[in-house]
């Protein structure tokens, strides 16, 4: 008990534990985001997360809960709008991303009574997490991964081919809906730590690294998770060492890993010539 207490007393250890938790959730979800070409969708959800945070402050809700609700509502709104309008998906995403971001920023203007850290909101502050945050990340993360495990076959088959999945009784419409909620969930869990602008980076870059060096879906999920964890650990140590902000440092490390992951592809290409 005593030792555990001391461990959690250290802000840096808390940051490491929370960050690793987020990276483990982001690995498999990030792969799905890449496979389904949903990176802008992730962006839209995280921009709308800002609105969720503002609402949480206004009505003193729990931030994670509020962000989850807003992201989920925006996601469902988007799916609905796609059926009703003739606009392309990317236009609708832009429309929702920027209007929810704007509403969030306008609302912040009204909150003059509360000290508001806008930078913290956009880029997160993983060094400020407390034990309660860590508990939420691990409980929420376990729930997300458990649900993902159960709907994986359906989700994966629908990613490869929707018609095939539907014809063969995999019920892809249900798993697609749940997946949207899970995506909203991971954004809600990580907003405090990584921030609205960088969450999609933590989803996408590890999965992109994994794509470069894997030959099967399972391998890609495992490598993406590992790459995320390594980025978090290395990024946090770098930020401690050279005194840079933690969230962006994690993403920069991930980017470096991505560049390194291109080397095997390059060598393979040369050998095949």
């Amino acid at each position, binding site marked *: 008990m005593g030792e555990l207490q001391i461990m959690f007393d250290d802000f840096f250890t808390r940051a490491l534990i929370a960050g690793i938790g987020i990276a483990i959730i982001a690995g498999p979800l990030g792969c799905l985001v*890449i496979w389904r070409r949903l990176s802008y969708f992730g962006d839209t959800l995280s921009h709308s997360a800002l609105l969720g945070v503002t609402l949480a402050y206004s009505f003193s809700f729990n931030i994670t809960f509020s962000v989850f609700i807003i992201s989920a509502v925006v996601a469902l709104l988007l799916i609905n709008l796609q059926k009703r309008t003739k606009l392309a998906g990317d236009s609708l995403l832009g429309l929702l991303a920027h209007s929810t971001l704007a509403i969030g920023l306008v609302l912040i203007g009204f909150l003059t009574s509360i000290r508001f850290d806008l930078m913290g909101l956009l880029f997160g502050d993983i060094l400020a997490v407390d034990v309660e945050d860590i508990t939420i990340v691990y409980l929420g993360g376990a729930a997300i991964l458990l649900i993902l495990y159960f709907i994986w*076959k359906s989700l994966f088959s629908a990613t*490869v*081919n929707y*018609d*095939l999945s539907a*014809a*063969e009784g995999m019920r892809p419409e249900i798993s697609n809906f749940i997946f949207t909620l899970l995506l909203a969930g991971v954004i809600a869990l990580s907003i405090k730590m990584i921030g609205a602008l960088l969450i999609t980076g933590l989803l996408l870059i590890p999965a992109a690294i994994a*794509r470069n060096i894997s030959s099967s879906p399972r391998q890609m999920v495992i490598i993406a998770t590992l790459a995320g964890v390594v980025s978090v650990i290395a990024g946090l140590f770098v930020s401690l060492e050279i005194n840079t902000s933690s969230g962006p440092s994690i993403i920069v490390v991930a980017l470096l890993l991505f560049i390194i992951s291109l080397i095997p592809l390059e060598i393979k290409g040369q050998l095949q010539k």
Partner: protein
Amino acid sequence: MAENNNLLVKLDNCGVYKSSKWIVRGISLEIHKGKIVTLIGPNGSGKTTSAKMILKILKSDEGQIKNFASKMAYVPQKINIDWTMPLRVVDFMKLTSHINNLEIVDALKLTGVDNLLYNDIHNLSGGEFQRVLIARAIAKKPDLLVLDEPVQGVDFNGEIALYNLIKKICSTLNCGILLISHDLHFVMSATDHVICLNGHICCSGTPRSIVKNSAYIDLFGEHNATTLSLYQHDHDHSHGTDGRVTNNV
């Protein structure tokens, strides 16, 4: 009653309405165990749409569908696997079912591509991919198999072998098969029931009765119709991939 036990799907006056027009309308058909039903018709006549209705991918906007099939397998006409996903043949074979590698290899052997087990699916040729698609559907051991132009891009000898395989599967699995095909030779010689589509059912019946139908002759032309009636000879032999006569049917 015995007849009813073999019934897998029954469509009664079904249709799909999309962007203010009927894609297909007035579709009534039955698929039974151990029988091959074929849909033929020109491009855009609603063959794929009808198949999707049967597979419950699309909802019918009128009429009634009864589907008693417990396990359906589908070979779609077009499938495009995104390059962002690393996928080997073995992963693809397990897409919607839990089957072991032994069963996978057995199914791939049937379509002659068991050597491709660990190949990247993106590097297969069109014909090889088609063979994998068919193997995947067979490996599921379905009671209703829907094949939408299954042999597209397959070489000539392979085409004959695959059609023979489809016929064989129909009896070994005792499954019902819905086949969409442009290959009138096969349709007329090997299927039990032919449905001629052009937005609605122009005519339907046994191959023998269809070729004499005036709606069929209008749709496919006098020349094809008469050529094909000549094709109604009984097959007492089959050909190996090199063209030699074999008797493996």
